[in-house]
């Protein structure tokens, strides 16, 4: 099979997921040997309208960006959402907790009404177009990213974990952060990160999104066991906005 053409696009985000491509270092050169990168604004001057795989980073916050994403979708055979902003709106979805006029006024004061500051509720890519594959995380895990691209280039379907971070955290032999009084989202968040944060003593804050069927009753048992309430959990769950909020009955 001929080398697939890959194009990389960014929307509202910190561009830290793209940075993980650069952080592949020599491995990036290996990747370039099996695929042609035809557009990548952050690293190249070249631009292209023809590509097989579109990799989309960032959340969608403006109408003009929705149109651009639809155009990208129409040209790509495969569309990959890269990182939490694209897979589920990411930290930018915090904005959706407020009235939009209030948000603009808070940051821009009397200039809030200027047209180029137009903003809408933050959306993940699949709230605008069909997404074929998801690379979860904030930022993405570069090993998982290369695994997904390698699978696609070989015509295989990549398998993404559908079990919670706790599984990987236990395998790493970490003491449970709940024991330390940290409100950790490990029990309901999708693994695949190697439990990077709890392994460094920092609670899971949910950047990979919820597993498909989170065991919310078990989560409630954990909350009770440590003398916390549902609000303690919700205040952490809100950091990475999600389209599939599980209901936790207080």
């Amino acid at each position, binding site marked *: 099979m001929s080398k697939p053409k890959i194009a990389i696009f960014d929307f509202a985000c910190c561009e*830290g997921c793209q940075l993980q491509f*650069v952080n592949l270092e020599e491995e990036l050169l290996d990747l*370039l040997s099996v695929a042609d990168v035809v557009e990548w604004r952050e690293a190249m001057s070249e631009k292209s309208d023809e590509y097989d795989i579109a990799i989309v980073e960032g959340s969608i916050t403006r109408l003009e960006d929705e149109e651009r994403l639809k155009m990208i979708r129409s040209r790509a055979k495969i569309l990959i959402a890269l990182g939490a902003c694209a897979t589920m709106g990411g*930290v930018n979805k915090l904005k959706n907790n407020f009235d939009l006029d209030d948000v603009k006024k808070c940051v821009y004061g009397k200039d809030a009404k200027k047209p180029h500051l137009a903003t809408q509720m933050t959306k993940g890519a699949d709230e605008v177009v069909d997404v074929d594959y998801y690379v979860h995380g904030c930022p993405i895990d570069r090993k998982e990213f290369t695994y997904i691209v390698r699978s696609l280039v070989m015509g295989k379907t990549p398998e993404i974990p559908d079990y919670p971070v706790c599984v990987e955290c236990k395998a790493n032999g970490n003491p449970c952060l709940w024991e330390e009084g940290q409100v950790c989202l490990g029990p309901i968040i999708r693994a695949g990160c190697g439990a990077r944060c709890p392994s460094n*003593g920092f609670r899971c804050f949910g950047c990979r999104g919820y597993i498909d069927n989170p065991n919310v009753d078990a989560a409630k048992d954990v909350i009770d066991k440590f003398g916390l309430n549902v609000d303690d959990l919700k205040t952490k769950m809100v*950091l990475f906005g999600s389209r599939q909020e599980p209901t936790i009955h207080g």
Partner: protein
Amino acid sequence: MAKTVNVNVHHVTRVEGHGNIVVNATDGQIEKVEWQVPEAPRFFEAMVRGRSYEDIQTIVSRICGICSITHSLASTKAVENAMDIEVSEQADTVRILMHYSEQLQSHVLHVGYLVSPDLFGLPSVVPLAAKAPEVVLAVIRLHRLANEWSDLIAGRTTHPVTLKPGGLTKFPTEKELRGLQERLKKSVGDLTAVAEAVLSVAGNIPDFTRETEYVSLKQDNPPTYTFYHGDITSTDYDGTVAINDWQSVANEYVSDQSTAKWTKWNRGSYAVGALARFNNNAELLSPMAKDVAKTFGLAKGCCNPFMNNVAQLVECVHVVETSIGMIDDLLTKGLKAEKVKVSPKAGKASGCVEAPRGILFHEYEFDRKGNCVGADICIPTNQNHASIQEDFEKFVPEILDEGEDAVRLKMEMLVRSYDPCISCSTHMLDVQFVK
């Protein structure tokens, strides 16, 4: 020779974030020279309201993927200042080591991957890898070192997870620190190779000068080429301004000429970044860093913005050399376990550190439960916009005779030399768009 030049660069490539350049000149008369920033605003200062003091750095780290450690440090310092939280000497030292890893990562990325293709006359680092493979491999090794250094101390390369108000969640072991120190010592060869490669094409650095004000941190006690502690100073200002008074330095305003929120202090614009730090603090650089500056003829008072990239190279050497000594110091004293317990309280304060691309201010106010009620963030790239615009206005007439392609390339190079990180831009109020 009458010149008609129209340059319209939509989304400058090889910068982080989105920026446009517009030049219209007819018969040698310049009608319009503009630096525009159409990045989608993300409203971080609004989004942090209501969030706990212990979650602030997790949120604002996402302002920028390249300087995530810097944003985390500035916000954590602000929280600590607002709540009078003490940080131990060893945590302070390890945080500075963490910060240095990001300076190296960002500078190597910028000079090695994004700027050097211009100096070698190539469109990206990919053809550069074919033309000068040994240089690109040295850049890759340095970049990998910087990232693994962040991994070790910050928990990962982007968006640190070991920082918390009052200290760190995890310290590296003495064995890990010794391993890092060995690698830093070995990296000097690669740093020298990259510096020599850039020196070999230094003739392609445009000869352009515009005298202006350079703003950075300054630390007197002990005297340090600082990225982390100290107060605010400038080349126009004798003395220092306290961090909590940063708004009196930035003086954010809406320009008549465009609608961007710009900054100015003692004159029409000021510049921040490696060259600003160098111009304020060069005598405090490490010995090897001073040598590199000398080989490039870089001396205090330099007002060529393109030399910012040389100052970045100088700082790469400085952070590596300084970190080797800091690790010695940590190992001599021995690392001790820390248990940090923080009690939130009401307060308002600022935190300031030097991002790779210039001085960064964060300010937060918290209620008595430690929930955020207000925030104000002023990022370095926004502080450079007025300077980029004033550079354009002086530079374009000087190069107009060189034709459209050269004008376009040199203006793009000028923008890149500032290392703009436009996704950071929390306060971007631009511009009319090109008709």
